[in-house]
């Protein structure tokens, strides 16, 4: 197990290095691109371009350029955004993280609870009308573009039915820090949570149902039934428990991807100033340093999350542990 962990962590470091090189090459070395202009944002003056060339060592060899960039991102953390008048990029990313974490954590709780309930209900009710009904709902959930769903939710809760008793408590779009006002934090996040979780509810409920039904025909489940265990006990202690292996590893990947920037569309539609929103703003300002740094940090988060999932998976399930 220890060698597995060491090898997995070493591999993670290699992937992280490869990610930084890839992003660097993409932003600085794509054919037909002037990196100084890329960094400078819209309509730069010649003086600024010259300053950027000097600062980033753009007339020096490739490894030096790469080193300077990584130094600015990871060590001195003083990469500045030119479109945003000298705003430091890295502290900005870290300041945006709590909003993203609030959004993703809440949505994750909803989707795990509802997806397990739906998946189990569909598997248990197989043969009745409720099973296909639940699965059609799940299918609709995974077929909706999340930004469009968010807009429809906004239309209802902020405009059309906002004055009705149902939605009059919904605050205007935006994010309030938990430390500022816990109640406003919660109220403002309820609909973003629901919107973000719907896709994952649909996806996880489908996966869980298929998995549960497949496992039900396994020998050990038959043994459990033959022992005379109640149907509920078979489900909770035997079937569901095995399904959780798939469920947990999927969850780790999706959670990592969402924190690493995947919640971008939900953040944009609901005006939640998280990491994804930062990328969106940088997009509209052509603020490439911010996009670059966010992509690197986002990918790092995902890679680390995947490593943790893999190690936890190997801990839970000895079958995947390589000898």
């Amino acid at each position, binding site marked *: 197990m220890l060698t597995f962990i060491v090898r997995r962590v070493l591999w993670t470091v290699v992937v992280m290095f490869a990610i930084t090189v890839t992003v660097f090459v*993409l932003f600085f070395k794509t054919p037909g691109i002037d990196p100084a202009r890329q960094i400078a944002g819209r309509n730069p003056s010649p003086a600024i371009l010259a300053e950027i060339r000097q600062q980033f060592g753009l007339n020096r060899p490739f490894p030096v350029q790469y080193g300077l960039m990584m130094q600015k991102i990871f060590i001195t953390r003083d990469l500045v955004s030119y479109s945003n008048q000298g705003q430091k990029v890295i502290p900005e990313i870290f300041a945006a993280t709590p909003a993203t974490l609030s959004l993703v954590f809440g949505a994750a709780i909803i989707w795990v609870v509802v997806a397990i309930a739906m998946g189990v209900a569909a598997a248990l009710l197989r043969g009745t009308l409720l099973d296909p009904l639940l699965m059609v709902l799940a299918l609709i959930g995974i077929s909706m573009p999340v930004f469009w769903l968010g807009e429809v939710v906004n239309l209802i809760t902020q405009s059309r039915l906002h004055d009705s008793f149902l939605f009059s408590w919904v605050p205007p779009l935006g994010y309030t820090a938990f430390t500022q006002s816990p109640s406003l934090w919660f109220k403002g996040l309820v609909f973003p949570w629901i919107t973000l979780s719907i896709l994952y509810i649909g996806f996880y409920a489908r996966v869980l149902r298929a998995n549960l039904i497949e496992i039900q025909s396994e020998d050990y489940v038959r043994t459990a039934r033959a022992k005379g265990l109640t149907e509920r006990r078979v489900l909770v202690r035997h079937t569901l428990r095995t399904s959780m292996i798939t469920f947990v590893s999927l969850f780790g990947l999706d959670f990592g991807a969402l924190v690493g920037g995947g919640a971008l*569309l939900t953040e944009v539609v609901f005006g939640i100033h998280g990491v994804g929103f930062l990328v969106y703003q940088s997009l509209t300002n052509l603020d490439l340093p911010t996009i670059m740094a966010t992509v690197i940090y986002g990918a790092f988060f995902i890679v680390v999350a995947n490593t943790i999932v893999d190690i936890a998976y190997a801990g839970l399930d000895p079958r995947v542990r390589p000898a």
Partner: protein
Amino acid sequence: MAVAFVESAEPPSQEVQAAGVTGRSPWALAARRLWRNRLAMAALGLFLLIVVVSFAAPFYAHHVAHDNPFAANLDGTTIVNGKRVPLMQQGGGTLHLGETPLPPTWHFSHYFLGADELGRDVAARVLYGGRSSLEVGVGSAVICCLIATVVALIAGYFGGLVDAVLSRIMDLIWAFPVYLLAISISTVLLTSANGLSLGPLHLVASSLWLPTIIIAFIYLPYVYRPIRGHVLSVSEKEFVQAAIAQGSSDLRLIFSDVMPNVISQVVVLLPLMIATTILTESALSFLSIGVQPPNASWGTIINDGQDLLYTRPWVAIAPGIMIVLTVLALNVLGDGVRDALDPRAKLRVEG
């Protein structure tokens, strides 16, 4: 069947074999299973209907609506209930200030879904947008599946160092957050004044090929990984060993022994990939880094409708409904294709 058996006493010629066994080829069996799956056929019908309607966009704009959905038309008028009304109405919003475009008239020849903030026909734009969305979505899914399959065949068949290098490259693409990778590539390519130059191939920023290629690229590992797994398991099979023993060349082994046995897996993935790529295209276009003007897509129209959301919600709602219907149809069809081509998977699940 009996006829086929009698004739096969001697090795039958290609045609006889084809004629005698038609009903039994796995593809024909799968097609028949799919044909009998009413839900999947309804989904296929819905998808084809959306395709036909979207590609009829120019016909609708020229011959039914008589307008140009790509030109601003702020001073235009149309007819509602026999009266001529301006496309941009004074007031009309919640605050009764400024100009608000015409709401839906629900008349096919007169701004069915109303006008957008530039006085353009929303219904015609949704149809044109569907054409771009479908072109980008289907195009990128097909390109992605083709490239990923070829790479997976090479990696899985040759194994060793080739497999290690190709798989690590795919792992690297996989490590990036999908949308952030797409955003990075799109911004870099869209900000470079000349678009993308790949040797003799040159793409301007407004070309539909740009989002198509970007989306195809980011999903490569999602097709590559499962297909490579199948290539590995097929390469172990006895008939491949037999072909090797017969001295078949690598190319022959890959394309006539291994490929036919993994192609069904690709076909299963294709509708689901199109569903995914259409959603991705709409998201990128919504962020204004996908389909570029003058082209419109469902995503860009939803983006246009954002500012009008509370006053003229149909501008944003209509293209969204089209996306949901298309993606839903493709997902249902994908499930049907999977059940048809791999009935054992269904058996495993349905007991």
